[in-house]
Each structure stands twice: as C-alpha cells, then as structure tokens.
C-alpha cells in the first residue's frame, strides 16, 4: 500500500495533538475527583459525544461494516432497537440516581443501594472484563496494521524484521494511551474521544459519499443486492426469512431489551462519561445528546459494508493470508476477499462447500479503493483513533473501579485523597500492562478469548434486572440482588449448555451439557440466552427480597424512584428538558424504522 509523506504527516500531527491534550490537562489533575470524574465539570455535549465515542471502538467501525456486508441494513437493529431506546431510558429515568446519589462508579451505586457483596461481585467482574476488552482492542489494532501493510516499507528500509510490526503496533498504542490518561485522567480520555468522534465522521462521510455515488445511490444498492439487504423489518416474522436468523420477538426482547439496556444503562464504561457531566441536567442530557449521532451512525458505518459487497467483484487490495507468503487472491464478492486459512493459505469453505468471505476487510478495502494519498492518511488516522479510544474508555473505567471499588474498600481503606490519586495513576499503568498481556494471550489462544467473552456475556445478561428492581422497587434487598445475579448467570450458562445453533458443533458454541433445542442462528441463541438470564434474575431477586428483611427506607433516599424528589427542570428551556428530547429522539427512530422497513 502506497502511503506518501502527507499521510505520515497527518498521522504524526494527530498523535502530537493526542499527547498534547494530555500534557495541557496535567496541571488540572489535583484531586482524585479530577482524575476519576473529570472534576464533574464536563459540558453536556462533550460528555454526550464521549458517551458514544467510548463505545465507538474499532470493533464497531470494522465490525458494523462487516455486518453490513453480511446482513445488510438489518444491522441497523443494533442501533435503532439495540441502543436508542436504552439510551433514552438511562437519561430520563436512571441518571437521576447515578448522578444524584453522588456515587463515583456503578459498583458504588450498588453498595449504596444494596450491600457490599453485590458491589464486590460487580466490581471484580467488571474490572476483569475491561482489561480483556482493552487487550482485544489492542490485538485487533496490531492485527489490522499488519494486514494493511503500511509499515512494511518503512520497516524494510530500517532493516527491521516484519514480525516486529505487530509488536510495534501493541507497544506504541499502549504507550500513547498510557501517556495521555496518566497525565490527564478521565478528562483527557473524554477530550480524545470527542476528537476521535469528529475524525471518524470526517473520514467516513467522504467514503460513503463516493461509494454511494459510484453504486448509483440507495436505488443502485437496492437493484444490485436485492430486497433481503435493504429492508430492516420485512421477513422478521420468521427466523428463516431474514438474514439474521432471528424472529422479531427474540430481537426485540433479547437485543432491544435485555442486552441493550444491560449495556447502555449499567456499563460503567459509558455511564462514567455521564457522571462526569457538570450538572444533573447535563448528566441526564448526556445519553440523549449521544443518541442523535448514534441514530445516524448506520449510514456512516453500515453503508460502507453494503457498498463494498455491491461493487463488481475484483481482486481486493487487502487479503488476510498467512504471514510472509504471497497468496493469489481467490474470488470473493465485491471488494471482500475469501477467507483464508491462517496456516495453509487455502480458502475456508462453509458447510455447502462455498468459500467464506472475510467480512472484516470490507471497510479497510473500501478505504483503499476510493481514497488517494492524503485522504487515505486521514481515513487511517480515523481508524487508529477509534482503536485507541476503545482502549482508553476501558482503561479509565478500570482505574476508577479498581481504586474506588476494590483497592479502597478491601485493600487499603481510609488513606488520604492524594494516595488514591496516586493509586489511580498506578492502576492506569498496570491496567495497560495487563491489557498488553491480554493482547498476547489472544494471539496464542483464540479460544480462551472466546470463552472469556462468553463468560462475560453470562455475567452481564442479568445485570439490568438488578438495576431495574433496585431503582424502582424499594423492597428489593441486598440478598435478593446478589442471589438474583448469581442465579441469572447460572441460568445463562445452563441455557447455553443445552442449546445449539444450526450447523454448529457442541463446545464453545453451546450444547456442552446436552442439545435439547436448536436455534436457527447463533444470534438467536445469544438473544435467548440473555432473555433466560434476565428473567431468572428478575424472579429470583423478587422472591428472595420478599423473604429477607426490607431495607430501611431512610437509607434509600436518592437511590430509589419512590423515595427521591424528581429533579426540577421548570427553569430549563424546553429543548434542554430530557423528557422532550427523549420523545423527539424516539419519534425520529420510529420514523427511520418506517423508512427502511
């Protein structure tokens, strides 16, 4: 791939800005609240853009393009069903308790509302998960740099072995993220997330524009790809008549309710951005402001996938073959190459003997296809930025939960603020060191990573039931929450162990106890695993709460809906009131669903 001086200069300028922001913020980091909560001083629009950017890691930019190529516009369900309603809900109904309770983290809210053991369980599982997510992000980034081959030339010129490109990707990204978070804490992470948001938009709008112009717009896509690619609701009545292999109920309940609300309403990675806002009303507006660009993102990240597969089939610029061998590219579809076996270099075939496609290369290939040197530098910078933000979001969430919810209560209580500030900085260092270890673990044992992600899915699925009952039912008790969480996780594991998706072999994909039910797709299986976990947690929490001692009502003020005064917002202009904003966002989402039905 031919990068020229201008591309390298663009990348260098971006890195200088990233580090410069950290350095400029260093002098404001005086207390632990400055470091972990940005001094609760972030304006709503900045917190809002950081709220979606923290989640806009490379898994999303590359992954949603890949899903777009595979499933078509149906992928928009991950936004319009799987994000927007939950974002509106957390802003209107839950933020008053997160922000109003003055808890510094989501696990800390659980301690205030329930008890120590519920907090401990949540803190430990969350901290572990963030480390591995950031490790996976780092691994994906180094892998992509390797696939893009843009460092091959410079490395050859310097006489360095090509195998070092992967290590360089890991070390450099780790050092950059470490530096700017160590210096500027959460503020630095948030500022860089906002910068990254604009970069992604700046890099992807011209890509989509050129692509659509080339394929003849939406009408052209429709004509080339056929109806199954361009409708998001037609065929959702039956799992066999749509590309996702899921029926509408599993989609709405599993993705739209359990998984989406579980993520957007309880995951500290995103909630932390709203907690850093400068007022209660700004905190409530944070997810609502975030919902507006989130609603439009399908056009930016999913459409490139559709464009890539709709173009005439040609030899793509990038293929993902074994290291060091030159493989002639076998036929794929559009710009998407066939998937190659990592050791033999032969195409991977599916059950019917057709070659599988390497969908993850849809977006990178499209960038190389349309962007000449110059814009290419900007596009690559946007990709690198998204990888680093994804990591940084995890690292700031980790250092906060580690310090406030593990170190402070269980290891060293009662130390001064300066000590915890120092601990937060230390946690940033060893959090990133552990992520690097995670990234290398992923290169060796791909299955371990799959297994970990599965376990986290089991742990996360029931969480929203706990928060829903905790915030809206004052009778819910600590014992109830704790046993509900454990039994929900157990229910998820059992359901996964007893079911399998069509064509899969028992093991990591499910059915490791016995196969009593077959789902039409892996996605349907995941959605239903979540539904079972949530329902079990909900029921068990209620039953155990009813037989255990009710919490004292005086303790619940500010933590439970019926015990808390509504935040007054009569003095705010109408466009700043969460309820109006939320209603407008939901109406726009319904409209988008109707247009692309």
């Amino acid at each position, binding site marked *: 791939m031919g990068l020229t001086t201008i591309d390298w200069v663009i990348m260098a300028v971006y890195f200088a800005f990233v580090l410069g922001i950290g350095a400029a913020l260093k002098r404001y980091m005086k207390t632990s609240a400055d470091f972990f909560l940005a*001094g609760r001083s972030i304006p709503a629009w900045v917190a809002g853009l950081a709220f979606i950017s923290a989640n806009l890691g490379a898994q999303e930019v590359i992954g949603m393009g890949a899903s777009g190529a595979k499933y078509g516009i149906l992928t928009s369900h991950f936004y319009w069903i799987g994000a927007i309603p939950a974002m509106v809900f957390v802003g209107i109904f839950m933020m008053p308790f997160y922000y109003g309770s003055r808890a510094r983290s989501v696990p800390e809210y659980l301690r205030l509302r329930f008890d120590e053991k519920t907090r401990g369980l949540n803190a430990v599982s969350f901290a572990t998960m963030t480390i591995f997510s950031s490790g996976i992000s780092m691994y994906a980034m180094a892998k992509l740099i390797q696939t893009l081959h843009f460092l091959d030339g410079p490395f050859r010129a310097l006489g360095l072995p090509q195998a070092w490109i992967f290590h360089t990707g890991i070390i450099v990204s780790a050092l950059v993220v470490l530096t700017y978070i160590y210096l500027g804490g959460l503020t630095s992470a948030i500022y860089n997330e906002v910068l990254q948001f604009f970069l992604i938009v700046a890099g992807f709008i011209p890509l989509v524009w050129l692509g659509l112009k080339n394929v003849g717009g939406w009408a052209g896509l429709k004509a080339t790809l056929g109806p199954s690619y361009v409708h998001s609701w037609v065929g959702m009545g039956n799992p066999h008549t749509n590309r996702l292999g899921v029926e509408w109920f599993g989609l709405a309940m599993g993705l739209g309710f359990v998984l989406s609300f579980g993520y957007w309403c309880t995951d500290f990675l995103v909630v932390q951005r709203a907690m850093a806002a400068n007022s*209660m009303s700004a905190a409530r507006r944070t997810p609502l402001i975030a919902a507006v660009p989130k609603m439009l993102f399908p056009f930016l990240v999913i459409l490139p996938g559709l464009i890539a597969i709709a173009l005439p089939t040609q030899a793509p610029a990038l293929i993902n073959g074994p290291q060091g061998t030159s493989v002639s590219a076998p036929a794929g579809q559009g710009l998407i190459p066939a998937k190659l076996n990592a050791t033999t270099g032969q195409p991977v075939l599916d059950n019917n003997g057709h070659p599988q496609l390497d969908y993850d290369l849809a977006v990178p290939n499209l960038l190389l296809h349309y962007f*000449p040197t110059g814009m290419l530098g900007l596009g690559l910078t946007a990709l690198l930025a998204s990888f680093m933000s994804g990591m940084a979001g995890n690292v700031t969430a980790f250092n906060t939960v580690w310090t406030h919810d593990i170190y402070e209560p269980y290891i060293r209580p009662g130390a001064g603020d300066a000590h915890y500030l120092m601990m937060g900085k230390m946690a940033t260092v060893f959090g990133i060191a552990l992520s690097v270890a995670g990234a290398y673990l992923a290169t060796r044992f791909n299955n371990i990573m799959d297994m970990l992600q599965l376990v986290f899915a089991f742990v996360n699925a029931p969480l929203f039931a706990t928060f829903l009952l905790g915030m809206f039912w004052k009778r819910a008790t600590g014992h109830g929450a704790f046993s509900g969480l454990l039994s929900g996780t157990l229910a998820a594991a059992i359901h996964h162990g007893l079911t399998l998706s069509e064509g899969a072999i028992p093991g990591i994909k499910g059915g490791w106890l016995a196969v009593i039910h077959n789902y039409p797709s892996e996605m349907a299986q995941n959605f239903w695993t979540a539904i079972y976990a949530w329902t079990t947690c909900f029921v068990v929490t209620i039953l155990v709460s009813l037989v255990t001692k009710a919490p004292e009502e005086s303790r619940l003020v500010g933590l439970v809906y019926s015990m808390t005064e509504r935040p007054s917002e009569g003095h705010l202009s109408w466009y700043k009131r969460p309820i109006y904003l939320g209603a407008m966002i939901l109406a726009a989402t319904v409209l988008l669903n109707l247009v692309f039905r």
Partner: protein
Amino acid sequence: MGLDIRLPIGMLFTIFGIMLIAFGAFSNPALYVQSLGININLNWGVILLIFGLIMLFLGARAMFFTRRATETPTTDDRAPRH
C-alpha cells in the same frame, strides 16, 4: 475543566484542512482516478478547514466570555455540591 475542547479540535481540523487543500491543489490529477475523478483532497480539505475555523471561533468566543464573567458566576442548573 480549564481547556475548552473546541480549541484543539479547531486547530487540528484547520491544520488538516490546509494540508489537504495545499496537497490537493498541486497534486497530479491522475491520482484522482480512484476517487471517481473528484479531487477529494481539495474538496474535503475545504470542508475540514471551514469546520476547523468554526470550532476555533466558538472556542475562542467562549474563552473570552468566561474570562469576563469570572467575577459574576452564572446561576445555571448546577446540582448542589455536598
């Protein structure tokens, strides 16, 4: 928090805009066969420059007003601090 984020964003996009415009203006037109014959560097550079300048303007204006208003803090919807 001290630094207004619009200033660095404005600066970065202004620099990117100027770079792409300058490069686009003097580059070989054959480069743009792949971008459908459109000089995407020049065109998009102009848009990035405009965006960068708007952000710089907003950030500088906010900084100017905060400096003048430091003596009289506005009564906004700030939550009570405990």
